[in-house]
Each structure stands twice: as C-alpha cells, then as structure tokens.
C-alpha cells in the first residue's frame, strides 16, 4: 500500500507530503468502512424496513434515515475499527508522508506522524530515544482508547 501510494502520488508530485500520506491511509480506510457499512445495513431486519414502508415513508428516506439509524452502532464501530487500524500504520506513511522532525510548513510537505516517530526512535541506537519510542506507543494507545471511548459515547442508546 505504501509503495502504491508512493507510485501514485509521491512520484508525480515529486515530493513526500502529508497529502500523499492521507491518500495512502484513505485507501486502506475507505474499503474497510464501505464493506462493514454494507454488511451492517444488510443485517437490519426486513421487519424494520416493512414497518417504515407501511407508514408511508418513501424508500430512500427509509434507507437513509431509518435503516442507517438502526445500524448506527455497527457502522460507527466499523469506522472506528478502521481508524484504529490506520492509526498504527507506519509503512504506508514511510513511503508517502516520510516524517518530519521540523516545523510543518504546509500539507504539501513531508509531515510527522506518531507511528513514524516511534519507528525512527525505535531503530535508533540510543537508549534515550528508545524510551521516547515507548512513550510514543503509549500516546498511540491512548489515542486508540480515546477513539473507542468516543464511539461508545455516540452509539449509546439515547435516554
């Protein structure tokens, strides 16, 4: 995926950039989300659709507002799983966003990313940097945890 992103964006643009990194991650993210969403919508029982139909609700409104709503929990979970999946991606970013130790000047420039930072610290020869890599990992886990917590919050049944 990283190499693909490299060929598709980095070479034509002649530079590593945040955009290329985002595009590479999106290529992992979007298919996963689409697939789980489709699956979740399919799992909504026919009786729900029939109930909406029998109330004189148009089919497109039924799908958009009722079927999707019934499947919200599943869809959000799918999105979060996909997010959790790409949060830790290092390889695609290595080939596209590259990483950046300095101040960010724009999204068309190489950009820093936590997994990249962990990667470069971890392969370094210094004890001190290893510690920083561990700290980075904690930050990453914290972010994943936060995402999941948000998901929980938004998918709870409204009281």
């Amino acid at each position, binding site marked *: 995926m990283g190499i693909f992103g490299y060929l598709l964006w980095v070479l034509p643009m002649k530079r590593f950039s945040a955009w290329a990194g985002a595009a590479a991650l999106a290529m992992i993210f979007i298919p996963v989300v689409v697939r789980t969403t489709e699956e979740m919508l399919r799992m909504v029982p026919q009786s729900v659709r029939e109930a*909406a139909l029998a*109330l004189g609700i148009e089919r497109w409104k039924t799908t958009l507002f009722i079927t999707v*709503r019934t499947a919200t929990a599943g869809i959000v979970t799918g999105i979060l799983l996909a997010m959790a999946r790409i949060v830790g991606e290092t390889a695609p970013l290595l080939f596209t966003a590259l990483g950046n130790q300095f101040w960010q000047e724009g999204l068309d420039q190489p950009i820093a990313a936590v997994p990249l930072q962990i990667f470069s610290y971890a392969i370094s020869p210094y004890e001190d940097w290893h510690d920083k890599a561990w700290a980075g990992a904690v930050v990453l886990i914290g972010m994943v945890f936060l995402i999941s917590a948000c998901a929980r919050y938004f998918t709870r049944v409204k009281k």
Partner: protein
Amino acid sequence: MENALQVKDLCAWFGEHQVLKNITMDIRRNSVTSVMGPSGCGKSTFIRCLNRMHDLTPGFRVAGDVLFDGRNIYSEKIDPVLLRRKVGMVFQQPNPFPRMSAFENVAVGLKFNGKKRTRSEMAEVVEKSLRMAALWDELKDHLDRPGTSLSGGQQQRLCIARALAVEPEVLLMDEPCSALDPVSAAKIEELIEDLSDKYTIVVVTHNMQQAGRISDFVAFFLLGDLIEMDKAAKIFTNPADRRTEEYITGRFG
C-alpha cells in the same frame, strides 16, 4: 360510500405459484372484518395486497382490482406511498424501530411525511395516538425509553399508535395478537373494538374465539379461495359452506 375497500377478482402469484384466486369482497367502512383460514391459505398475502406491501417482493404479481375510495390502488395514477398513509399496517411480530424512543417511534411517520410541524404539534399527535392505542397512561412518564425496551404487548400497542399517528382510514392487522400473552392479547382485542368506530379494520386471525368477539364480518379462506364471507354471527352459527363449518368446528386447520 359504505365500503372502504372493494376487492374484485384479485389473483396473486409468487413466481408461478398462484396464492390468491379470484377474491371478490367488499370491506365495510368502520367495521372489523376478520380474515380466517388455515396457515398458508393466503391470508397475509391478501391483506398485504390491500396496501401494496408486496410491491418490493421479487416475482410477485397481481391481477384484478382493489378499489379504495372507489379508485383502483393498482392503477398507475396511485402513489403507493400515499396509499400506505391511508391504509396502515400492524404486523404479527411487534416491530418498533430499534434505537428510537417510544415518542420517536410514534412521531416518525409524521416526521417524514413532508408537512412541517412544530415540536408541540408533534407532542400533541403523539399523545393523541398513544391515548387511542390505550398506552398513554402507562407510558406518559416513560416516553423517552427505547421502544424496544417495552413489554411485548406494549410494543404492539406502540406499533398501533405509530400507525394511527399518520391518520389512516384503514388499519390492516396481520395476526396482531398471536405473538402475545393472553392478557396483552385481550387488551389489543378491546382496542380493536374501540378503534372500529373510527377506522376500518381488517384483521387476520386464526383464533376462533377472538374472531367471534371482535368481528362484524368474517371472511373464510381456503387454499387461496375465498370460501365465504358474511356477518360474523352468521358464519359462526350457520355457515353456508360445509368447509367453513368444518373449519370453525375444528375438524381441520
């Protein structure tokens, strides 16, 4: 007009399999008409023809006419969506919308039918519908509970309230009590009797006693044919057809 629905020579097929054969019947306005018959004889198929619920079933085909207020509902000019707002339906399994509160469940039909309503107008309709469905007193302090957290009988009455909220003229009910305990079923029965002052009700049941208690008219189906239809008293005391008699005396079915 005296009849809310007039069915003329209605035939229906699932693929090659003919499920309804030349059904002709009139359904009297503001009365309860029960559709009876052994399982698989086409009762559900029949009442679903009355509000075009089969439109999306692949391979389904009808012939014949169903007149609602004198107009054929299968004509090109009829919008099935508008038709279903006039001819509502309650299903065998209570099916409140998951992830919606009781209030939202009742309000949902109004919310999507185009007309703008204020919050208080909405609340008014919800209260009125719940009262008609004999659920208001039990539920007025719990309107924000999820619809699916109610008991089975309450869920079914919630579904009735939901159907009433869009102000239909006809209510089709496909075995509305068969998934409920006897006490809840009795409440629904009582409700059907009350509602028949204002609504035309067609109810599928294969509970003989229930049909006897609630119906003004009974239609007896067998293998896709309408065997006979008459006043409930007549059907239960002196049916014209031997097969009807055999069914109501419990000799088959």
